[in-house]
């Protein structure tokens, strides 16, 4: 089943913070986050692995709670370049050799000046 993201869409002013949530009905081994601008390919942001680790770089960070089967992406002091649709991609705790990502429902983020 497809992971559910919330919110579906959000509009922020430049400099404001945002949180995007991803919730799965399946146990997870890892969570990916990608950003896709209109008409372009998804671009990788980060991976989080089982263990509840929190990762980040610059002003974008994320957390992963495998017990709750949830991940959150945190965007701090948003910039115009952050606009796009954000997808989580989840990898269930499956056997080696048949792993694959199921992408979430997506969150459209619009940053306005």
């Amino acid at each position, binding site marked *: 089943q497809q992971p559910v993201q919330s919110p579906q869409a959000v509009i922020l002013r430049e400099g404001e913070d945002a949180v995007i949530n991803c919730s799965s009905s399946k146990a997870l081994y890892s969570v*990916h986050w*990608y950003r896709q601008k209109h008409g*372009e*390919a*998804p671009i990788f942001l980060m*991976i989080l692995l089982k263990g509840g680790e929190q990762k980040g770089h610059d002003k974008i960070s994320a957390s992963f709670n495998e017990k709750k089967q949830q991940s959150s992406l945190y965007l701090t002091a948003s910039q115009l370049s952050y606009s796009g649709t954000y997808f989580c991609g989840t990898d269930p705790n499956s056997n080696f050799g*048949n792993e*694959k990502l199921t992408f979430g*429902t997506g969150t459209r983020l619009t940053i306005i000046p």
Partner: protein
Amino acid sequence: DAMVIQNPRYQVTQFGKPVTLSCSQTLNHNVMYWYQQKSSQAPKLLFHYYDKDFNNEADTPDNFQSRRPNTSFCFLDIRSPGLGDAAMYLCATSRDPGGRSGEQYFGPGTRLTVT
């Protein structure tokens, strides 16, 4: 410096006329994926190759086939395109399957129009 290349970028085909989309990579990654993405939706995995091992998603229509003749190239064949197959087709690669070791690198996509 292109890493994942897809050709053509835009493809128009007629209803029922077979079409082939191609993907090549310069990353020497052992995994290649094909996704279908319809407007305002998430990419949906059609199938993937781990080296030469082909993995088909259960809900991928039989109309969709794939070939991977070598590490660098992968093809998506749509045998009899229907209007519902109009979409962006994304090719991606990764060093290892899923999220175990690294990110997926996406190509720019081929936008398929069916008339």
